[in-house]
């Protein structure tokens, strides 16, 4: 049994829009394990991104507690969370979120400049297969290439956890597969705990663990005994 890396205790997230209270998370208890690749599935609005943001220290839970290793995230100040993100977390977003005025290499350097023990930007880009596109600006790259730059940026700091919010959402299947290959490769090679949100149910087949979301709650957790390689996934 692998070590637990994330543990949450009855976390809720309430958005008070004035007229109504929206329960984005309505009591989530969850455990994630070191080195695993977990896929989060669930309908739109079920609270997946909200959970991911809280795990990544981007957002605060309204109630409940979250532990990363043995430190409690929910007790941390903003400053502490910043340091936590800087030292431990890598993010990959659906819309890549590259800085348009920086080249691929510079986008990665944005992270390596502040991380404690980063790998060289070139190496990170090499890992995602973009060794020859390093000096290109985001506007000169395809969506899949941009997303791979975003992954390179996320892994360059050698994070303990990699949080990906619909990393293939904006991509076609071939490019999507390429991106997933990279994610699995990183997960295997470095043992990086990886969480991937997706709407594509097929992708669950490459995960160690699949978590289903419904109305701000976990409706089901499943462990795959057999995993497929991304190239075997069809959608």
């Amino acid at each position, binding site marked *: 049994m692998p070590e637990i890396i994330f543990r949450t205790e009855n976390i809720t997230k309430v958005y008070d829009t004035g007229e109504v209270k929206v329960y984005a998370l309505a009591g989530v208890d969850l455990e994630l394990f070191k080195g695993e690749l977990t896929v989060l599935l669930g309908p739109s609005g079920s609270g997946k991104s909200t959970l991911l*943001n809280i795990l*990544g220290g*981007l*957002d605060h839970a309204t109630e409940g507690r979250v532990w990363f290793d043995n430190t409690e995230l929910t007790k941390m100040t*903003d*400053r502490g969370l*910043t*340091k936590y*993100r*800087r*030292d431990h*977390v*890598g*993010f990959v*977003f659906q*819309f890549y*979120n590259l*800085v348009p*005025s*920086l080249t691929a290499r*510079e*986008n*990665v*350097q*944005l*992270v390596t*400049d*502040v*991380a404690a023990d980063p790998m060289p930007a070139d190496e990170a880009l090499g890992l995602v297969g973009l060794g020859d596109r390093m000096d290109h600006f985001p*506007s000169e790259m395809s969506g899949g290439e941009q997303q791979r730059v975003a992954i390179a*940026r*996320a892994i360059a*700091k050698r994070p303990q956890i990699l949080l990906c919010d619909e990393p293939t959402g904006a991509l076609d299947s071939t490019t999507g597969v390429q991106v997933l290959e990279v994610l699995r490769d990183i997960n295997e090679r470095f043992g990086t705990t990886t969480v991937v949100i997706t709407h594509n149910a097929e992708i669950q087949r490459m995960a160690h663990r699949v978590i289903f979301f419904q109305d701000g709650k976990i409706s089901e957790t499943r462990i795959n005994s057999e995993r497929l390689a991304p190239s075997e996934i069809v959608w």
Partner: protein
Amino acid sequence: MQAIDRKLFRDFQRLWLQAIAIAVVLSCGVAILLTSVGMFVALSETRTAYYERNRFADVFAHTVRAPLSLVSEIAQIDGVAGVEARISGTAILDIPGRTRTAVGRILSYPEKTNPVLNLPLLIQGRFPDPAVTSEIVVNAPFAEANNFRPGDSFSANLRGQKRSFTIVGAVQSPEFVYTIGPGAMMPDNEAFGIIWMSERAAAAAFDMTGAFNEVALSFATGTNTASVIDALDDLLEPFGGLGAYDRTDHQSDAFLEAELSQLKGMAAILPPVFFAIAGFLVSMVMSRIIALERSEIGLMKAIGYSNTEVCLHYLMLAGLIALVGVLIGWVAGTILARSLAVQYATFFNFPYVIFHVSYWVYAAAGLAGLATTSLGALQAALKAARLAPAIAMQPPAPPRFKRSLIDEAMTKARLAQSTIMILRSLLRWPVRSLLTSLGLALAVASVIASIFINDALDEIVDLTFYQTNRQDAMLLFAEDIPETVLEEVRNLPGVLQAESQQFHAAILRKGHLSKRVAIDSRRPGADLSRVLDIEGRPLDVPPGGILLSRRLAGQLGVHAGDTLQAEFLTGRRETYSLTVTGLVDQLLGLGAYMDLEYLNALFRQAPRLSTVNVTLDENQIDDLHRAIKDIPRLTGIIEMNVNRRAFQDTIEQNIVVMNSIYISIAIMITVGVSYNAARIQLSERARELASLRILGFGRGEVSYILIGEMMLIALIAQPIGWLIGAWIASAMTNAFTSDLYAIPLVLKPHIFAIGSLVVLSATLGSVLIVRRRLDRLDLVSVMKTRE
């Protein structure tokens, strides 16, 4: 270089036109601050040093003739540290090779000792040998203007006696930093000089052996000026004292002081306006950038940049703009200060030039520029810092449009959809639209408030030079002489018309208020020099009293019909009770007028005059100058034509310079404001406009929205600008109104038109530049970008 810094420079590069537009506005503030503060410090330090080293006196007094024995009594006055008595007089000079007369102010130079106060500083040659009474030194500007070298000589008409003098040196004096001849409006160093000669020669020339007619005092620290002046007046009273005065009334120092206060005013008014506009522009641009870069901000935070780092990142972008502005400002300010220093060098006579701007002034002006820019960016940067990282990752909530009464009205008015878009955007950002409008209004105001001065000066010149004083020249005499001299003057070559006029120094008193004035009297019906009211209507001074300008009456607290005491300092020095027969509104001076015949009767004297006003035949001017050099007791000639021309030349030159400066300033403000506003609109509207293009709208129709909104804002700015401009103009006329003159508030329609034209065309120009971007809009990429 760190990646985040690289982003900074790339962002700056992308924004450089906008950045430059802001930086230029900022640089105006920095340059003006640098120039005004720098020159203020330089000028006042130079003055202080000069005054100290050359012991400029604290109090000055003139008398008719006082015995030298009085000097020791003056020295006894409480608080007096030094006394310098001397002889002074005026003479017409005959300079070889010069047909026109020059006038010299003659001062005695002590023979055995050095002067105690107002030490002349030798620039060239040597001081006169006390034994040789024909040796003189002259003030350096006079020597320079006339190309005098030591050894040159000229003659002077000293009370009817022609005497020849040899120049042995040129000096500068703290008393004559600014020299202007009697009755002149502008310095004319060629025609007016200061001459120092030995005491013996001066005494002989002005019949002053054993006597003096000018005295200067210096104080021990902490002395009460007023009490010394009173004591000195008491001592001089029996000897025809003309009233002691302190430095504030000293002509040369008063001019320096006026320049200093002008610099102070410049430093206080203009830079804050520029800084405010630059700050506003920075805040507008930064808010937009931060709205655009929401997701980048979120990203930076997600990957571990702290709030402070993000805040600093955006502050540094503003800092780069400030840096460019400050650098341009420093360069422009240095050039401006240098050209001002050159101007000072021609107007003011200092022995040493410390006209360099201190480094701390550069630092202070730079800091001020940096501070305003940071302040402008602060709100936006803090917003970036406060943005929660999770929220920053989501697209911004679409702005809430609510249907309002205005929308109902717009629909009812059946406005075109594009017009509705323009109006709705104005209303969506009311504060920003208003501030943009205000920025443009300030540009309009700056044009109006500067060029109205032309019309005001025109009016002054017309009233004083062409309507009040219609004579071609004034002949001045040393003292009052019988009016029979008028016949002699009429017989001089070239003289067509001659009229007499008298000036009497007097102190007018009413209750505890008093004012020292020159009472001006002439015969009724005088045609060359007239008394005019503010509308330009000539008045005859009613006999049996005194006519006062309203400004003077105000200072004395008298009304028409009141009686006041007039203490004449001339002639028999008698005091009379005079009825104020009327008040007259005037632009210039503290006029006090009496009928000449009434005055002669009051003085129980045969008709006399002190000045003759003449009209001349231009062709015989040279003959006239030759002739008057020999007329005894004539101490000067004021050529009004030359005066008018010099004054107008100077004014016109200044006006051309000032107008171009202010119009450039207005253009810079306009471009700064409208270019940035249009760029921001374009950036906010890019998707909207691109969608319209995709839907099949033509370029013209789409640019109409962009241009229309900006021009509408500019149009709204016009009436506001007119109001602000008129208000500033009237504030300026009030501020400039002094003891001596009033600037009339002349606001002709054309200046409003010029202001609007300048600003509207600069706005249109700026929007058209932005429009070119619209033409190049890449429809596909705009629609692809997420916002």
